[in-house]
């Protein structure tokens, strides 16, 4: 399996993981998007915004060959740029649409990359990594923050979707 094939397999799996995340988001009500378990913790709206903005901007960085702090901050709802973007997620429907749109952009961006594009080093404030590594960053982030979201769903008295129910 070459790097391109590995990246495509990772994208296919992320598509399935994303499907489960969309269902998890769909269990929330509009009001619950503002639920904050403790001061200083993110709300579901902020978590969803972070997961998906991060996925999109990491893909953009991989395509452009550079990922800077300004881009990284756009995914943080605590930053000025992030707070502005967060307003797009007013309702659960908005949040799902936002998630789907960001995911699609990232998928489209990575999927068309050539072997050469994938291997190209991309500079970031945290070091220089091959472009393919930026998909892995997005992938790890997704699993991690969705784990947090699952704890929130329990706190809200909900039954989270089966984590591995990729069939529905």
């Amino acid at each position, binding site marked *: *399996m070459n*790097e391109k094939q*590995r990246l495509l397999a990772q994208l296919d799996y992320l598509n399935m993981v994303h499907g489960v995340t969309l269902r998890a988001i769909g269990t929330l009500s509009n009001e619950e998007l503002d639920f904050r*378990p*403790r001061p*200083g*913790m993110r709300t579901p709206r902020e978590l969803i915004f972070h997961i998906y903005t991060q996925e999109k901007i990491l893909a953009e960085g991989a395509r452009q060959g550079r990922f800077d702090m300004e881009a*990284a901050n756009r995914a943080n709802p*605590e930053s000025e740029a992030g707070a502005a973007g967060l307003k797009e997620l007013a309702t659960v429907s908005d949040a799902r649409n936002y998630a789907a749109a960001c995911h699609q952009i990232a998928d489209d961006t990575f999927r068309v990359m050539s072997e050469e594009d994938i291997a190209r080093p991309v500079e970031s404030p945290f070091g220089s990594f091959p472009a393919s590594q930026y998909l*892995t*960053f997005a992938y*790890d*982030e997704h*699993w*991690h*923050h*969705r*784990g*947090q*979201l*699952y*704890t*929130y769903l*329990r*706190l809200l*008295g909900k*039954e989270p979707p089966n*984590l591995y129910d990729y069939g529905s």
Partner: protein
Amino acid sequence: MTLREFYLQRRQAEFPVFMRVLKAIPKDQLNYKPAERSPSTEQLLWTLTSELRSCLDVVIENRAEWKPVPPPPLDEMLEMFERWSNELTDRVSKMDEEGWNRTAQFYVNGKVVSEQPAGTFLFFILFDAIHHRGQLAAYLRPMGAKVPAIYGPSADELSKS
């Protein structure tokens, strides 16, 4: 880079993150659970640790069995987590591609519940563990603990500096 090498790279990147989160757990909060249906801190930690044992069994014997073993004390679990993590990385680094692709069985209550290549199982468990670590990370502040840096500095880390 082969998938096995990629897995090793991910394990090496994730291991210190796991250790930071696990070491942030307050000793007196093992019974904490945010909601009645949630696993307790101790259950999550024991799941993360036991998953490593299953990965090792798959690598060594091509089969693993999930057994309901009571969790040991916190310090012992942390020591097991660290030891098994290192052993797993070491063993996978010495695996050949044939071993990585060999079919392994996973048993629960004596029945085969999954049959898949060892490498597929190892990746599956790595991301399952990242998910559970994410759950656990959301327990930390309600337990009165600080969240360590995970994929970047946490708000608690930034407020220290």
